């Protein structure tokens, strides 16, 4: 069973790397545009508080960007070290898409990042704004190419197989594959929500640390409104994406719904422990006709069941049920928590009441919700990626066929090393976010037991 061990370990290793990686692009994709917005507001109004907001958040951006870059490099190597069958089989398609990501996005971001971070005093204002815009466009293009490739792995088309190797027949069909527009917009909105709640959460934390600067009032408003506006769009988009998945990957939707038998009037399962041995749900709590209503928009709509995806010899051809079922529920649950919190906050801040209008429990609720975008994004990716199993490229290449011939001990030892590094970095990242927030909140006031902050321009502007 050596092959299986390497397969499982390689999957865990890639899952660990890609999970760690996606945390940071999820922040940088939207944060770049938020920074551009700050810079644009400063250019228009001349209000230096917008630049203060920029300087604070650009630090978070720089840190997130660095973590995203280094963990992304890891993945580009792991295609070869752990999944050589992937490029050998579909390299003619994946290759150019990845190459276009590197040449159109990576270099644009990486080169202009220096000017964006350190160039405010060195270059004319328009060039600094341009550098910020270039980085924002770069992150967006990077997301575009990666989501094209990922969507193609879910809904492949525009190619033909010759001797086990995929050859391109139409680039338009590959790029504009059926799930790409849904997945791309779903992910971009997820990034926007992650940043909205991160900005609101850190701003709330600073407010609770008695920071009363005007810059903070601005960022809190931006975060709350961004969240309140994007979340309904995301719920609507998620529904469309689900319908698209139902059309192309019914087994995944059956696992998301925890539905075993194909039929009409399928209930919406709110809670259950799916049991793959017995092929049924335990402790099921469900709303009658719910799944039929959501997926077919009629109470007697027919919804596919998992038992349709078992071969005659008993081979399971659907994804593992419990992880897909649960990660989907986590994602949706976090989404509704975002809706509740951002709308409550937007209501409390209405009509110029501002941050003062927010009751303390609401401010406190924003602090843990700073990371809600991460949780929802990861849960969503687990739903869609585990939901594609046992395929790596749906219907074309199985995950098992792509794995490399490396001894399991080697995969295991590197896995442990990566996990240790990622754990330390994640702890350090969160620690530094809190540290930056505290430094900003306390400004030049010396903290007990620590030297005064030497940067005088970090002094918060007195409230009003």
């Amino acid at each position, binding site marked *: 069973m050596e092959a299986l061990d390497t397969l499982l370990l390689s999957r865990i290793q890639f899952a660990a790397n890609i999970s760690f990686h996606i945390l940071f692009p999820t922040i940088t994709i939207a944060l770049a545009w938020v920074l551009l917005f700050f810079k644009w507001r400063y250019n228009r109004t001349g209000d230096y508080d917008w630049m203060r907001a920029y300087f604070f958040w650009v630090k978070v951006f720089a840190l997130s960007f660095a973590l995203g870059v280094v963990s992304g490099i890891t993945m580009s190597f792991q295609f*070869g070290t752990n999944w050589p069958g992937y490029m050998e089989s579909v390299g003619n398609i994946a290759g150019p898409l990845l190459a276009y990501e590197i040449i159109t996005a990576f*270099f644009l971001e990486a080169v202009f990042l220096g000017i964006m971070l350190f160039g405010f005093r060195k270059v004319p204002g328009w060039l600094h704004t341009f550098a910020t815009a270039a980085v924002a466009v770069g992150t967006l293009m990077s997301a575009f190419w990666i989501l094209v490739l990922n969507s193609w792995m879910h809904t492949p088309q525009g190619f033909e197989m010759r001797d086990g190797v995929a050859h391109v027949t139409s680039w338009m069909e590959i790029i504009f594959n059926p799930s790409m527009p849904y997945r791309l917009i779903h992910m971009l909105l997820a990034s926007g929500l992650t940043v909205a709640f991160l900005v609101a959460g850190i701003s709330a934390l600073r407010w609770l640390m008695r920071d009363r600067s005007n810059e903070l009032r601005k960022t809190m408003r931006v975060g709350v409104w961004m969240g309140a506006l994007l979340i309904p769009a995301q719920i609507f988009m998620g529904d469309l994406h689900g319908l698209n998945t139902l059309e192309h990957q019914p087994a995944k939707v059956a696992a998301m719904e925890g539905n075993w038998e194909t039929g009409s009037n399928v209930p919406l399962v709110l809670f259950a422990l799916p049991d793959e041995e017995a092929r049924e749900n335990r402790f099921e709590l469900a709303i009658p006709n719910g799944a039929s209503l959501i997926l077919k928009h009629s109470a007697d709509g027919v919804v596919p069941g998992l038992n349709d995806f078992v071969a005659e010899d008993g081979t399971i051809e659907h994804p593992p049920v419990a992880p897909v079922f649960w990660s989907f529920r986590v994602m949706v649950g976090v989404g509704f928590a975002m809706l509740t919190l951002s709308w409550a906050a937007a209501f409390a801040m209405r009509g110029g009441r501002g941050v003062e209008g927010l009751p303390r429990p609401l401010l406190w609720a924003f602090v843990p919700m700073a990371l809600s975008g991460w949780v929802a994004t990861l849960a969503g990716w687990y739903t869609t990626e585990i939901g594609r199993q046992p395929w790596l490229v749906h219907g074309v290449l199985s995950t098992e066929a792509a794995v490399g011939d490396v001894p399991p001990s080697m995969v295991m030892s590197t896995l442990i090393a990566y996990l240790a590094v990622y754990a330390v970095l994640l702890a350090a990242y969160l620690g530094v976010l809190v540290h930056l927030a505290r430094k900003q909140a306390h400004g030049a006031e010396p903290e007990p037991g620590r030297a005064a902050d030497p940067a005088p321009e970090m002094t918060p502007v007195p409230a009003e």
Partner: protein
Amino acid sequence: MTLFADPTLWLPLAFAALMGLSILVYVVLDGYDLGVGMLFPFATASERDRMVASIGPFWDANETWLVLAVGLLLVAFPYAHGTILTALYLPVAIMLIGLILRGVSFEFRVKAPAPHKWAWNAAFFAGSLMAAAAQGWMLGMYVMGLEHTLGNALFAAASAVFLCIGYSLIGATWLILKTDGDLQRKAVRWARGGIWGVAGGLAAISAATPLVSPRIWEKWFSVPEIFLLAPLPILSGVLLAVLWFSLRRLPTADDQFAWLPFTATTGLVILAFIGLAYSFYPYVVPERMTIYEAAAAPGSLFIMLIGVLVVVPVIIGYSALAYWVFRGKATELRYD
């Protein structure tokens, strides 16, 4: 133009050339910032801030050349990509962890609470060392044909040491260019120390490569090749001499010629690279797989080539802009 008549002939060659160019640019550019990282333990706290400032605006773009190089290997030679990277599984993992530590320490060392700074400085040094040593090991293993034997491992270990010294030399010459005062004087001393390691490394790789394979021996030591190739070792010798004499004179009073050691070192890297490329052509996996056997389908290569030819000049253009904006001696990095 018979060469261009058959795209299965010239497309793999074009991509091999592009990949070679990316690796070369990577070695020079990331070479200087990994080298600066490895010189960290020899510097004082304020010198370290200055050293990081000299590479801060550039390191990210420098590393992107590695992504491009492995990306081109991945996309243009998918069959070789798996073979090479599975054979180098552990050193690749060590290099990646090194690059992770190095990259994030840039950010953490200035943003983390001050009492933690020493730990991120240590991670910055360790990451740079891990990445450089792993790359040297991989170079040695690659030259030896990716066969895991004790002799090859010893050679790879020596190659790792030489590459670390080589990167440190590039890093030191970069500091001569980008700093002044005490740190510049120190950098000159560091560079003087590195020059011997580099000469030894060049000699060892040059001696070993033809001995590994009769085919490479044939390519070097037959007439007229030996005369056509003679400029490589001769020019290398001249550049080493230039380096040696310039380091004895630097730093000059008006900072003239501060650019010379970095330029000479870059020249050495280019010559060494041409030598290696000549030895291994047409193989992408030494003695096992040629670039023509490993290449992706011509249609896929062609669509990438168009993108690369349009975009690479633009990349060079805005890289030049970044170097121009941050020209001159490195000053403190400020966000505001």
